[in-house]
């Protein structure tokens, strides 16, 4: 842990603000000058009530959304000074996303879904297939390669989503309540798998959850409140 803190921060948010305009309700501030530092190799749980802005923060950190103010730094470089093409490249090379509901492409098999980020990168199809197969076997779905998302159980879908996020060997895994739609037992299994893979690949991870008991497995816990981060409460 001390080692990790000494190394340069991998992802750093400074003074992050995000507001929306709701018709009739005026401006709503979701993030209010939020600061966050995540070092290489850290596995962080982000807790908070629903509506605290956890998902918005995750989207901004993953460059899916832009902050209204503040900046996100990756290895010290400001991210939101890059253009759309460079951001796409950044998402493809560096970030892996897992969402609350699996968000798999419904018309593609588990294998094709897992291959997709590699194909987006223009990896050769045969190589992409090999790598995708490898990681699907690793998440225990070697026998479900040709099944479409509709033909998989909730836990299996989420495992495919995890395999897809990790297929590109990203440096950062951003997971938005990956177990939120699962029953507690399956949720625990998926989370254990997530932590296990993270250790194995050495991926830095930020996992949003509102399940306190599941969050206990994480070495570092952050709480979100009022659009800001409160470190380590309830740790």
């Amino acid at each position, binding site marked *: 842990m001390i080692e990790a803190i000494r190394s340069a921060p991998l992802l750093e948010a400074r003074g992050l603000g995000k507001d*929306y*305009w*709701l*018709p009739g*309700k005026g401006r*709503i501030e*979701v993030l209010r000058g939020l600061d966050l530092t995540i070092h290489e190799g850290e596995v962080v749980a982000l807790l908070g*009530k*629903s*509506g*605290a*802005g*956890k*998902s*918005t923060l995750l*989207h901004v950190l*993953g*460059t*899916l*959304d*832009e902050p*209204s103010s503040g900046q996100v730094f990756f290895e010290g470089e400001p991210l*939101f000074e890059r*253009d*759309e*093409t460079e951001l*796409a*490249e*950044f*998402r*493809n*090379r560096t*970030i892996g*996303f897992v*969402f*609350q*509901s699996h*968000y798999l*492409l419904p*018309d*593609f098999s588990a294998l*094709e879904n897992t291959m*997709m*980020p590699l*194909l*987006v*990168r*223009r990896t050769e*199809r045969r190589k992409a297939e090999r790598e995708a197969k490898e990681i699907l076997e690793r998440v225990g779905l070697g026998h479900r390669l040709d099944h479409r998302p509709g033909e998989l159980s909730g836990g299996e879908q989420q495992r495919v989503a995890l395999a*897809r996020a990790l297929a590109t060997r990203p440096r950062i895994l951003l997971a938005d309540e990956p177990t939120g739609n699962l029953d507690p037992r399956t949720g625990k299994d998926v989370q254990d798998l997530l932590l296990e893979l993270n250790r194995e690949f050495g991926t830095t991870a930020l996992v949003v959850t509102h399940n306190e008991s599941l969050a206990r497995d994480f070495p570092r816990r952050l709480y979100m*409140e*009022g*659009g800001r981060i409160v470190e380590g409460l309830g740790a």
Partner: protein
Amino acid sequence: MQPSLEPQERPGRVAEAPPPRQPLVFSLGAWLLATAFLVGALGLQGVARLLLANQLGMRAVTADALGTLVGVGLALAGGAVVSAVTRRVGFWELAAAFVLAVGAGYGFLAHETTAAFFDLVPEGARFLAPVFVGAGLLLLSVIGSTFAYMVGAGRKLDLAIGWEAQVAKSHLRLTRRLLWGLGLLTLGIVPGVVVLALLLRRQRRSPTLIMTVLSIGGVAVGVMALCVVLSVMSGFEIDLKRKILGTNAHAVVLKYGVFEDWEDAAEVARETSGVLGVTPFVLQEVMVTAENNLTGALLKGIDPRTVGEVTELPREIVEGSLENLANPEAIPVRGEEPNRLPGIVVGRELARQLRIFVGDPVTVVSPLGGDLGPMGPQPKSMQFRLAGVFYSGMYEYDSKFAYVALDRAQAFFKMGESVSGLELKVNDIDDARRISRQVLANLEGYPYRVKDWGEMNRNLFSALKLEKIVMAVILAFIILVACFNILSTLVMLVLEKGKEISILKSMGARDNQVMKVFVLEGLAIGGIGTLVGLALGLLLCGAISIFPIPLDPEVYYISHLPVKIDLVQFGLVGLAAVLLAYLATIFPALYAARLRPVEGLRND
């Protein structure tokens, strides 16, 4: 933390002021570049005509085609350059360049001389020509720039369409079964639809699939209609051209004053390369009477020996014979005594109006050339005997022309040895103008002059051409409507697949790659529709030519609906349809590309 913040983590419908990451900057450089390209493309036609056709003696058609081709290339390249400079499609720069280029074109054509050079003398044409040509170039440059954006906006050339095609295919649900069904549609609409319905019976019928099939059908119907109508019009045109050129020469040589030295001139014309045949003629307006019937006619004196070199007349004789003009003794006469009257050949309609048959006497009356009588000039008349009847298929000719031997005509009109002119046949009717000019040059110009068939029938052929263009434009609107169908299908798809676009973008799909997905979808719809339409059009044209549709020959002067299957024309229709389909994809595809990644992730 305010309690009202509760639903805001995933706000349902959020009207958000988007932060200006890519502000709309108008790139002056791109604008100037685009203007240069468009003006260059507009001006190329003139350069091509001046340099290639007039200076280097290239055929006018070839020079024009070359100029157009390079102009098209320049417009595409201009669009690509604008996209490369601005790193987006750069539509506003191109539109502004269009305004400037059209202004320049209009200014250029405002001069009488330049306008006359392009055959654009009327004021309206002078204004419309740059607008139309410019609009075409603008569309081309938009095609160029969107294409360049798709393959090049990621900094490096990215021609691959691997996963994009896969995603596009999944959106359209174009299964093999569906494609087979559409293929069978070309066997005929009714059995095709039945088979298609049977094939799709067991397939998941999503609204998208129905929209896709309807869009394909729309394009197919438009393409088919355009192909069939243009083929029929081509058939009419070719029929008309064949009839006109069968009866008339490809070009004539005339002379100011008396044309007595025609034999020398004929020799000169015959020596000119490209000239296949030369024959002299005499032409005057006369009255023709037989018994109590009377009608006006054009009396043409011809040389029966050489006329066959130039016109189809010898092959158009349906009764009697043309040779009998030269030896009238052979004309069969009712009664015993041999014929002493000179022969005459008239058209079928003229014979019908005069109610005469081969062997009957005919009186030709000319108001001119007679002696002076006590009441002023007296009309002159001469008796002929009907030696033959011709049928050209052109009502105008069959009811107006009467042929006699050259020497008889010269004697009748008191012309001595002189003729009205020489008729020429050339080896390439599309090159008749250049060849006839060459003949004129070899004759050392004045007092000679030449006229080619295009000039002689200018009204008719320009009317036909205009009719065809107008027809093509009107029917192209069917395809245009079909393309709006594609547009609405794609907009539906983009809205339906918003979440998927966001997922793909979260994986790192670039804007231009997302654009590719939807352009591919539109092109697939347009392309399949075009192929089906072309096949249907070909089938229908084939059917019309195998099972002719009868027409009333008294009205149309043609016994059945003519059809000319011109594969180049089919290709052009197909190309136009695919280009229109591509243009229809641009808006939805760009809309999809510009969706912010978070957009589809918020509402679940």
